[in-house]
């Protein structure tokens, strides 16, 4: 912006009556961005700070307080707390369902976009996946509960993993579709001529190129599974409950354990946060540069 003003030619642009200087524009822009940041970060900040307060500080609405770790200690070490178990459950369910989603979505995207299906197959499958994605999960939960119960899958990891895989597959399919379509057709053809069969093409050519897409889709899928509430609420009991259910448990009929709830929420942010930090290096654009042209 400042560069543009250096080369600004008064004759070329007619003077507007209420024209703002570049400086003013920058101030306004930053005010808007800051207010967005505030909207996003304040609840986060509020929860994290609540986790370090005592119940009394919190209920009194004290802004200045002496931090303590009681909330965390209770959540992690208290004998009546299931949180670590919830945490473990969420990890297992999130990791396995994400893995399954990535495998199925990548194979499906490659097949749909690169193996020359007739148009109606492609469009009806993609259309169906959108419709499925738009259905609120809670409407499926009841039906799944009775189905899973009759085959003995209720309150099992397998049942919840299956449900999460199904729920998040459409989104992953669409995302992987975009990344697979970005792989130039000529690369697939070159590999065909080089003697590669479909599994080779997928493994040696397509997968290495869509790695950033796998990372991005994987992170999103994992976070969705980590946060998913209504379906696990219906399908799980104490043994298989996940983190969101665990957090919900702190709101009892008579009391709400606000600080424990806040501490558990704060802890629940960690995996997604670490995952993002770790996977960021995979999410780089331009991996195909040099491939064609």
């Amino acid at each position, binding site marked *: 912006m400042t560069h543009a003003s250096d080369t600004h030619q008064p004759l070329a642009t007619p003077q507007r009556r209420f024209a703002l200087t570049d400086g003013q524009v920058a101030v306004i822009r930053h005010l808007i961005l800051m207010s967005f940041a505030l909207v996003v970060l304040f609840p986060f900040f509020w929860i994290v700070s609540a986790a370090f307060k005592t119940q009394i500080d919190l209920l009194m609405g004290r802004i200045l307080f002496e931090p303590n770790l009681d909330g965390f200690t209770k959540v992690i070490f208290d004998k009546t707390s299931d949180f670590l178990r919830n945490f473990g459950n969420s990890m297992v369910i999130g990791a396995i369902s994400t893995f399954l989603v990535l495998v199925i979505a990548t194979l499906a995207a490659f097949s749909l976009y690169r193996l020359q299906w007739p148009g109606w197959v492609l469009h009806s499958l993609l259309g169906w996946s959108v419709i499925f994605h738009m259905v609120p999960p809670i409407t499926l939960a009841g039906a799944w509960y009775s189905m899973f119960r009759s085959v003995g899958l209720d309150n099992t990891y397998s049942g919840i993993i299956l449900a999460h895989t199904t729920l998040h597959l459409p989104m992953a399919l669409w995302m992987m579709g975009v990344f697979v379509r970005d792989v130039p057709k000529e690369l697939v053809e070159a590999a*065909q001529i080089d*003697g590669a069969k479909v599994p080779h093409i997928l493994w040696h050519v397509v997968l290495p190129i869509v790695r950033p897409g796998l990372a991005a889709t994987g992170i999103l899928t994992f976070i969705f599974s980590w946060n998913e509430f209504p379906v696990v609420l219906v399908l799980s009991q104490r043994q298989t409950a996940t983190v969101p259910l665990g957090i919900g448990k702190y709101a009892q009929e008579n009391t709400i354990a606000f600080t424990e709830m806040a501490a558990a929420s704060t802890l629940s942010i960690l995996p997604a946060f670490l995952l993002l930090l770790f996977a960021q290096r995979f999410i780089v654009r331009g991996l195909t540069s040099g491939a064609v042209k």
Partner: protein
Amino acid sequence: MAHVRLNNLSKSYGKVDVIKDVSLDIKDGEFVVLIGPSGCGKSTLLRMIAGLESITSGTLQIGGAPMNDVPPRDRGISMVFQSYALYPHMNSADNMSFSLKLAGEDEPQRRSKVDRAADILGLGPYLDRLPKQLSGGQRQRVAMGRAIVRKPEVFLFDEPLSNLDAKLRVKMRAELKELHQKLKTTTIYVTHDQVEAMTLADRIVVLRDGEIEQIGTPLELYDNPANAFVGAFLGSPTMNLLDLEVSAENPSEARFSDGEALRLAAPAAPGRATVGIRPECFALQSEAGSGALRAEVVVVEPTGASTELVVRKAGQNITVLSHERLAINPGDSVWLVPNAERVHAFPDGAAA
């Protein structure tokens, strides 16, 4: 090495026929160029030979064996793509040895084959670089290297030089020719650049709208084009196509509207005719003489080695190429003496 035989090959997408009944015999070791304007089906034909497009009807044989339903990997071909299509996550050496790896060859064997190809192409110092770290010409060479290491029966090139700048294109063209002289592998090469076709080909196949217009050596096609389209497509500056009248009394002459006549190489059917003559097939004189046609100079373009003139004769522009330094100005009159052996009358309606 192998010969390639196309018997009545056709390709349609629904009701649209892209390749119509193409038959072609390519000899072992021959360098054949498919040329034509964009949309003529030349790339489609090449991709049909490669196995990347299905064949609607007709048969394709490579080395005598029918190939219609054989997957690309078993056709004994390698292809160089216009976009190079290098695997972006593999370095040059891995790009070149990918096919060998798939074929189950062991590391030392692959290494030696890649090294040999790298030697031929001057790629030695670049073997451990990724495609994005290479220049356009180097990528082009890696793509060629990838084709060479497989020792194919047939090389297929799909406009391999069109992404390079003009200077590099000329250099790579010469390298390609040298490569073919060294390897003597049957080659089918698609281009829309007539200079590439003329310089590289043993035989040129001119395609239009999915059909073969003419097949022949570069000079056969240049000197004796079968029709105005082929005549105009090959050669630069382009062939003059004149709209003249052939009389029934004297079918070996074509008349301008001002009454002056041009002798034809062969008698033509009476009536209106498209007459083609190349710009270099005229001698120039500054005064009238027998068989000389009077014309008015419109534009003079000296290029150093030669001079290109545009002259007007009976309302039609004629381009004349002279290798002499001419003291001539727009508005002057000149007399053209055409080389009658190089004046072709084409059946009308075939003009490009």
